[in-house]
């Protein structure tokens, strides 16, 4: 039966990363807003602090949000599912801007998508910020930092960060969905069913997102190491190393 549901997702649900408007009942929607709020507030605090010393920081975060929005709207073919899906891009933004600002970037991209494209929703905005913004950003950032601290090369660290940021988002979305729609049924069986239903698109998509993040970070490392240094992704020594 899992595969029946899995098959249904693969042919129809190309935008499965966002929890659609209205899926969560009021109490669950409110709870996820409450969970997301401190993270967004911390992101805003960081934004205010950094933009005091750097006037270009707000435009930079806004443009990064626009870039992440476009990347997350780009259809990528998922060979195993025979369909297209889209990356979430939060791993990438977390590496470049840090996890707190990345939550803010995700919140902005999700709000525009909810209001003008019906990807995600206003009532599920909090839930989507938690799954995409918080889980995706913090997982991607932590993995990238840990791997870089043990001198793993940029491409592998970027790939792993993108991969796990995507999969963390997918697991979070499944948990939030299961808790919201379970009704009187127990949580765990429904959680596993939703998780398995997502697999045909999300497992290969995570690999694609990892490859995309690795491609992005390697390109920046080769072409614009100064930019990575400005964003505290690499040290001055590493920049000089990159310049050769």
């Amino acid at each position, binding site marked *: 039966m899992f595969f029946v549901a899995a098959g249904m997702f693969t042919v129809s649900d190309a935008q499965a990363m966002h929890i659609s408007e209205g899926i969560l009942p009021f109490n669950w929607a409110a709870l996820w807003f409450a969970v997301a709020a401190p993270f967004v507030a911390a992101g805003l605090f960081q934004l205010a602090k950094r933009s005091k010393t750097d006037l270009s920081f707000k435009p930079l975060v806004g443009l990064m949000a626009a870039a992440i929005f476009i990347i997350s709207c780009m259809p990528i073919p998922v060979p195993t599912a025979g369909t297209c899906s889209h990356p979430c891009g939060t791993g990438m933004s977390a590496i470049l801007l840090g996890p707190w600002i990345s939550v*803010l970037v995700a919140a902005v991209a999700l709000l525009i998508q909810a209001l003008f494209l019906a990807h995600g929703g206003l*009532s599920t905005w909090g839930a989507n910020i938690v799954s995409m913004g918080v889980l995706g950003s913090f997982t991607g950032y932590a993995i990238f930092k840990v791997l870089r601290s043990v001198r793993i090369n940029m491409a592998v660290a970027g790939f792993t960060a993108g991969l796990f940021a995507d999969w963390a988002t997918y697991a979070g979305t499944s948990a939030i969905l299961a808790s919201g729609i379970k009704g009187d049924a127990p949580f765990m069986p429904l959680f596993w069913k939703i998780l398995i239903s997502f697999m045909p698109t999300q497992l290969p998509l995570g690999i694609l997102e990892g490859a995309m993040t690795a491609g992005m970070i390697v390109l920046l490392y080769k072409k614009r190491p100064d930019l990575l240094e400005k964003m505290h992704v690499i040290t001055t020594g590493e920049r000089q190393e990159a310049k050769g």
Partner: protein
Amino acid sequence: MEYFSEDFRKHHMLTGIDARVKFIVAIAVLIMVISYKGFVFPLAVVLLNICLCMKMKVPFRALMLRLSEPLAIILVLILLKFLFSGREPLFSLSLFGLSVTGHKDGLIEGLMIAGRVLGAVSVIAVLGFSTPFTELMSGLSWMRIPKGFIEILMFAYRYIFVLFEDAMVIYNAQKNRLGYCSVRRGLNSFGTLAGSLILKAFDHSQNTTVAMVQRGYDGNMPLLRHKPFRLSEVVVSALFIIAMGCIWTLG
């Protein structure tokens, strides 16, 4: 992307209404929809919003595109609830040695979620179709959403279209040079595209900052000023919310 733009947002019955009033009404109806347990209210909301979209002359294709993703999700959710959730079996059959059971209560629950999704999506669709972005931002600032967040939203919205054009130019160039002819090359090209977009975003942000500082930017962007509320709009909106509340209670 053409249906994302505001090109078809012509003058109609809702354009003249204050964005704050539309926002409050939309949020009130949205809360009613997601807190309702049944079919009547969400379906009434969907019908009302489809009529409003027709009145606003929203292209049918745009409306369908807006509803396509939620409809796909609804279909999956109904089947998930029907087949995996519930206690009252409606039918049971054997497929390749596996037993498939459909549940009546699961189906009803699934349909209730479907109604909720459609109702909620239609509310936000009408809000999005009837309100320009800058007015929505002004409404958000009136609702005490932090200014820093609104500024980021405005920068992002302004540059989505610029970066989208840049992305299309890069994508077409890659495609014309067989950048997507195999999975491996496709992955490579997509990574390069993402990296190039980040570079473009960085360059645009530097140029924008220079241009804005030359025009007096001090780290804060001015937003639309709030006009006083019109009494007629407030009264009509309050009556509308009360009427919807009555349907919500009775339904």
